[in-house]
């Protein structure tokens, strides 16, 4: 089987479009951000499709109001804008308010990490994991291919509350050929290894596979785990999975040392009094304006396959 890659957003929007015919409580709100599949939602459900214009603060406020009236809301915009332009609206009228009022709002942010490759730092997004996971009741989900992205629909409609879906804007190779991962677990073990395990999220899972393959060629067998539910993964199960490793490598397309999955792994290990060593792969902390391919940009900021392979080798040798 060789599934053709699709855009994450198109697969989720397709699930939403199919569901909207029967489920009259689904509302779709966009901040003037589209996709070919979105055109179907707009055409077939004009009363439950709203474009607020280039106005992310209002995107969130309108979504909050609709959710208070009982609608399941999908709000859709480019990742840095739907998280950072309107962060206080999210905090006040979604995170705080959903503590006392039942609300179901699903924020779909397209453009994780460097996926808007040539658009530069305004449209790229390296802070959202840190920011969104700072909201204690926000479920942050970061899929690595379109199969896992589409499966998040069940989580979105099946549970109340605030959710943030961090989608890549590019077509990524299919990882979950055999079917989507277990949403309850929040992570998926792709490979078991010896001594070292790579824990990656989003696009960096693909880099993790390449690095693991390269290490395998030189005799190192490393584990690979996809951490796709960044906020509500089953921490006990993940700890069990990690217990046999001497070292963990975190890989994320976000700033390193700023509270992303690197910090989460430190917390997890430290809180459980484990001595596992941790090495972090993330964007070196600076805004940069170079133009290049995603791979080239990744090499420049410390998360490309080449630099990661070298740093992981060093890490392995230090253990």
């Amino acid at each position: 089987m060789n599934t053709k890659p699709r855009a994450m957003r198109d697969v989720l929007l397709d699930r939403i479009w199919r569901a909207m015919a029967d489920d009259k409580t689904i509302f779709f709100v966009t901040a003037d951000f589209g996709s070919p599949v979105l055109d179907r939602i707009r055409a077939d459900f004009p009363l439950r499709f709203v474009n607020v214009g280039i106005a992310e603060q209002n995107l969130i406020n309108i979504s909050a109001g609709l959710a208070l009236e009982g609608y399941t809301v999908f709000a859709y915009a480019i990742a840095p804008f739907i998280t950072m332009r309107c962060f206080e609206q999210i905090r006040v009228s979604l995170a705080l308010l959903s503590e006392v009022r039942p609300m179901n709002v699903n924020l779909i942010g397209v453009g994780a990490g460097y996926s808007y490759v040539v658009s530069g730092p305004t449209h790229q997004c390296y802070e959202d994991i840190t920011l969104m996971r700072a909201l204690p009741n926000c479920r942050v989900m970061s899929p690595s291919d379109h199969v896992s992205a589409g499966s998040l629909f069940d989580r979105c409609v099946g549970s109340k509350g605030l959710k943030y879906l961090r989608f890549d804007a590019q077509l990524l190779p299919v990882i979950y050929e055999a079917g989507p991962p277990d949403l309850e677990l929040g992570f998926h073990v792709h490979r078991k290894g010896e001594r070292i395990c790579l824990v990656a999220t989003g696009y960096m899972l693909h880099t993790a596979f390449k690095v693991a393959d390269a290490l395998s060629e030189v005799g190192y067998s490393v584990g690979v785990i996809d951490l796709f539910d960044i906020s509500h993964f089953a921490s006990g199960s993940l700890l069990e999975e990690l217990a046999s490793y001497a070292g963990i490598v975190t890989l994320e397309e976000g700033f390193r040392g700023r509270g992303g999955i690197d910090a989460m792994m430190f917390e997890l290990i430290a809180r459980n009094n484990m001595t596992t060593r941790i090495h972090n792969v993330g964007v070196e902390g600076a805004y940069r304006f170079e133009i290049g391919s995603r791979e080239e940009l990744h090499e420049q900021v410390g998360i490309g396959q080449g630099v990661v392979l070298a740093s992981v080798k060093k890490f392995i040798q230090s253990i």
Partner: protein
Amino acid sequence: MTANTIDLREKSHWVWRETLAIHRRAPETRVASSLSVIDIFVALYYGGVLRFDPLQPLNEERDRCVISKGHGSICMYPILADLGYFALSELQRVCHAGSFLGGIPDPVIPGYETVNGSLGHGLGVSTGMALGLKNKGSDRSVFVVVGDGELHEGANWEAIMFASQHKLDNLNLIVDNNQISMLGYTDDIVSHNSLLDRLSAFGWDCVEVDGHDVVQVQAALLKMKSSSLGKPKALIAKTLKGHGVPGLENAPLSHILNPKPELIDSLLEQKL
């Protein structure tokens, strides 16, 4: 004067006294901006404008009333208690440990719809509620009370544009236009000039009233609620921050001034 006007004026005076008394016990509360808006809330809740059920605050059949200028709505505590949303004795415990009535109201208070402490959020959320109600085929109305200073927040204007685009004539904005924010007169900070002209230019159906003539406010609100011309509606109520308190009324720094306890005591004695 009809029985109705006497009742409303008496009620406004009672709420004014209770608000001062709460502030006397809990000086952390923002009293000046709570005094300017009293007649608006009295008209809404006692003037036959809002449909509400104190025993089921979130009853689907209620009109939604969003109190966006949260800090300046301490006067809602006596109103909600008087209407039976919670016990009057709770008014003695404002800002005390264990009370649900804080210096800035939270949505844990029966009768409050949203988070109100941070300014500039209520109108947008109300606009989403109005859209949702229209979509459900509900004839219930949404009222939202904001301060004029709060309209400096740009997100309001995103909602103002959206509401007229979507012809949300079930949305009723009330501006407590006391023209003072924390550091002075809004005209000296960033002037709205004429809010009536500005909102009208954005496609809203607007009316201006004396916000301290509770009967006039009531009449305007009833008329506003019943009109459905395919436009969102705004009532701009000219009010005085710190209304009725010498030294506080219309003082540019009234937001951060606390009237002395002795002054409050003498006011409460005088107007018994």
